[in-house]
């Protein structure tokens, strides 16, 4: 008769391993002892019966001291951690808020509240006002207000703050929640991970953890049940905390820590460096944007290959005015700080709907009156956009690109619109860059096949591989029924791309790809091999493209691309790419 594992465990008193689940706040792995962070919650009972004069003095002394505390925190972080300095600067503005302080004053003079009660009342009142606004980021601001409130209350009540600033061994901090003040002096050497009961991906804990590259799990229910000092394994990728892991789990986790850290280091290398092949040939990488601002996470890139302007026309109750467009375009050029921005004129058709303008009701909107064609039919739309774009051109490096160009005549017609817009601006005395470069999207097969001629006429072009593939394969890329026919790695499309790239290179006219293919690492290899020198993609794809380009010489990429052109179909191409990647 044998004992089961479970009964053996019960007999020897070994605790069952507990797991806790949450949301990943910052990816990574860690294994260390848990440090329970549970600072005293200052709960204020609203009390009256204070001496107003005394309480006012106490309030103002507390405000003064809080300002000093914040000033020294900001000073300390000004050179080392700009983000923290910014947070505490915002806290200072709250401390000096006229209306907030007036509320607190009124509570003291009008209702004879103690200073603590006045602070609690005033701050909570505003926290409530903020929570009514619909803003996404408002949760962070409410947390900021409460952080400032607690700072004042600690000063008034004399309760000291448990800090995370000085550990003698590695720990994983577990807490109900963490505020900027809690983490202001975080010991980054010893804190290997963070777990909070509350919070989500955009809460302070997650943002801080990502910026410090410490793994973190948020929204982890019941994590405060974990005893102080227990060994915990933190998997912030799957978002699981394991208490008292066994030997195997520990070994696995240690391996994961090493692998993750190596991958991060390698990725970080590429973030700030320009793209280069193994034999040091530069490849120009750009990003695609579709809004008035973007977060590049400090990454290096060479240009903005596609500035989609549809957002200005959609989700609006009126056609965007020239003024509204101009302000947005100028902002984009400012943020680009000298990098070339390629603005694509409005690319909308019957597949979308606009509340203020009735788009044609067509059976085949993708083959219908859309984008430039629609603009030719409704000249005001294009003229307004061009006037706004030209005015903005005075503030940076702007290029204008026309979508859905079907033939050379389309481009020439678009040029007359540009001339009209320039003439109007001259008459109005508005400034603009007279040398704005003008180019086209290559997405309609008809113009792609005329690459040899169009390359001599335009200043530049960008291939919209998504739509080009759709038209070449005659398959709607959004139609699940024909997904297998949308073949963007078929020799057919590659041959057409090869032709376009060849002709543009021959003519010395810049050409880029701005469709999804540009951000796909294997496709990027092939495109570079076909002679493409510029690729534009989502900012999130920059690192993986840079990484793969760095592994091969241009010659290798050329050989690969040429071999693919001779294959029979997409399946063979994908297999060839797979074998190439592993060799």
């Amino acid at each position, binding site marked *: 008769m044998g004992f089961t594992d479970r009964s053996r465990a019960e007999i020897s008193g070994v605790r069952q391993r507990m797991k806790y689940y949450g949301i990943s706040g910052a990816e990574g792995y860690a294994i260390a002892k848990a440090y329970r962070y549970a600072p005293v919650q200052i709960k204020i009972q609203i009390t009256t019966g204070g001496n107003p004069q005394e309480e006012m003095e106490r309030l103002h002394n507390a405000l003064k001291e809080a300002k000093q505390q914040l000033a020294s925190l900001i000073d300390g972080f000004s050179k080392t951690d700009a983000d923290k300095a910014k947070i505490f600067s915002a806290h200072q503005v*709250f401390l000096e*808020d006229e209306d907030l302080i007036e509320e607190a004053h009124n509570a003291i003079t009008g209702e004879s509240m103690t200073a603590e009660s006045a602070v609690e009342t005033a701050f909570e009142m505003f926290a409530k006002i903020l929570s009514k606004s619909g*803003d996404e*980021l408002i949760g*962070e601001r409410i947390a900021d207000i409460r952080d400032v409130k607690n700072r004042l209350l600690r000063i008034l009540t004399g309760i000291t703050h448990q800090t995370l600033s000085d550990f003698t061994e590695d720990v994983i901090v577990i807490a109900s929640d963490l505020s900027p003040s809690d983490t202001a002096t975080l010991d980054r050497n010893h804190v290997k991970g963070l777990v909070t009961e509350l919070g989500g991906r955009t809460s302070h804990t997650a943002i801080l953890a990502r910026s410090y590259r410490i793994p973190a799990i948020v929204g982890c229910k019941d994590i405060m049940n974990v005893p102080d000092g227990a060994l915990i394994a933190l998997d912030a990728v799957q978002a699981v905390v394991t208490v008292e892991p066994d030997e195997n789990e520990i070994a696995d986790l240690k391996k994961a820590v090493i692998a993750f850290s190596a991958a991060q280091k390698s990725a970080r290398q590429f973030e700030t460096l320009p793209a280069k092949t193994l034999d040091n040939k530069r490849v120009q990488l750009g990003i695609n944007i579709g809004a*008035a601002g973007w977060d590049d996470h400090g990454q290096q890139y060479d240009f903005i290959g596609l500035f989609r302007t549809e957002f200005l026309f959609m989700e609006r109750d009126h056609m965007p005015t020239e003024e509204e467009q101009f302000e947005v375009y100028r*902002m984009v050029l400012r943020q680009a700080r000298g990098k070339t921005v390629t603005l694509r004129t409005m690319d909308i058709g019957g597949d979308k709907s606009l509340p203020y303008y009735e788009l044609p009701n067509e059976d085949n909107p993708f083959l219908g009156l859309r984008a430039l064609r629609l603009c030719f039919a409704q000249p005001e739309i294009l003229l307004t956009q061009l006037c706004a774009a030209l005015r903005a051109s005075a503030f940076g490096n702007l290029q204008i690109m026309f979508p859905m160009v079907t033939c050379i005549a389309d481009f020439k017609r678009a040029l007359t619109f540009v001339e009209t817009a320039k003439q109007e601006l001259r008459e109005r005395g508005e400034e603009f860059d007279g040398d704005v470069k003008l180019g086209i999207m290559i997405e309609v097969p008809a113009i792609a096949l005329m690459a040899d001629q169009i390359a001599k006429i335009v200043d530049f072009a960008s291939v919209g591989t998504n739509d080009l593939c759709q038209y070449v394969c005659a398959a709607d890329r959004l139609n699940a029924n024909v997904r297998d026919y949308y073949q963007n790695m078929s020799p057919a499309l590659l041959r057409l791309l090869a032709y376009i790239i060849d002709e543009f290179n021959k003519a010395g006219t810049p050409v880029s790809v701005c469709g999804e293919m540009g951000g796909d690492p294997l496709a990027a290899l092939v495109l570079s091999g076909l002679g493409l020198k510029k690729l534009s993609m989502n900012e999130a794809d920059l690192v993986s493209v840079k990484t793969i380009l760095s592994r091969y010489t241009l010659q290798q990429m050329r050989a690969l691309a040429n071999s693919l052109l001779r294959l029979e179909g997409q399946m063979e191409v994908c297999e060839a790419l797979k074998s190439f990647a592993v060799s």
Partner: protein
Amino acid sequence: MLARQTIVVNKTGLHARPASDLVLRAKTFESTITIKRTDGGEPVNAKSLVRILGEGMSMGTKVEIAADGSDEKEAVDALIALMASGFDE
């Protein structure tokens, strides 16, 4: 009393940092200054960060800045210019 309208152009709207910048700038003027959403909002004190944040002015919101006092013209001009600049974001 002087008032002018403009649009919020930052992608993330008038959130903490731009709102702080607006408040700090507003405080340099003597006039009383208010800001309100033109779509039926009440004017709020432009020198109070919490009041501005409470209005939730996202990108595209049309707002009116009004000032009343000895330096009302400079105040309105400066704040309109600050908002149009997108706060350098």
